[in-house]
């Protein structure tokens, strides 16, 4: 009789890390390098030092949360690594990472860009094609990631300890 396999711990750790690092990617690329938006740039336009600093504060809170998600992912990965019933699959982990990143883009995009309107991808354009492209990237990442997880499930049926 085969020992049962359980890829869920690896998928969950990858998804948490995808959410966390996807959030960092957003913060580093859009908030800091390109400076096309900040957390509350629709509410506090970057027209004064004070407004920029207010945005910086809320960017900091956002980064605290992405940091926490990454840390949870790391702990889960460590725990998954100690289990012999978890197939150690790079494909599963990468797929889960993209599912997490996609979930981040989709949820953050819908809530912040479309429902709350606290910022948009390119603030100077307001709600624009870039906001929809951001959502589309989320959907593509989720589909691509999920497909990778599914195909890895078929390949990795043997537990690491067997």
């Amino acid at each position, binding site marked *: *009789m*085969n020992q*049962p*396999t*359980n*890829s*869920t711990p690896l*998928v*969950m750790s990858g*998804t*948490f890390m995808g*959410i966390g690092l996807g959030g960092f990617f957003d913060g580093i690329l859009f908030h800091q390098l390109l400076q096309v938006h900040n*957390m*509350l740039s629709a509410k*506090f336009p970057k027209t*004064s*030092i*004070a*407004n920029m*600093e*207010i945005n910086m*504060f*809320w960017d900091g*809170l*956002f980064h605290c*949360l992405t940091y926490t*998600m990454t840390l949870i992912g790391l702990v889960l990965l460590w725990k998954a690594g100690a289990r012999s019933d978890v197939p150690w699959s790079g494909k599963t982990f990468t797929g889960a990472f993209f599912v997490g990143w996609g*979930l*981040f883009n989709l*949820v*953050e995009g819908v*809530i*912040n860009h479309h429902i*709350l309107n*606290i910022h948009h991808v390119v603030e100077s354009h307001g709600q624009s094609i870039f906001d929809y492209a951001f959502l589309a990237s989320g959907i593509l990442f989720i589909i691509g990631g999920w497909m990778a997880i599914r195909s890895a*499930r078929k390949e990795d*049926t043997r537990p690491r300890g067997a």
Partner: protein
Amino acid sequence: MNDSLPSLRRGGARFTRMIAGVFLLPMAASACPLCNTETGQQVRAGLFNDEFWPTFLMVLLPFPVLLILLAAMHSGLTRLDHRSSSRNST
């Protein structure tokens, strides 16, 4: 043990002075949320007002939603794993 107490106290006082210095130094800088400057006051007024907690919740909102989705994903995956394990064992 008792001899080390005064030196510990001296060390503590030095540390307190150092920390106080760190907070006083930015006063010379043009702006920061802790600075005692006009911009610093504007930043504080823009942050710590009646809007603070509603804004805090707005910034936080995507994360509880993500956690709910992750919980749903976890229960779905666990069910899938159980199903495929029982299929493999028969």
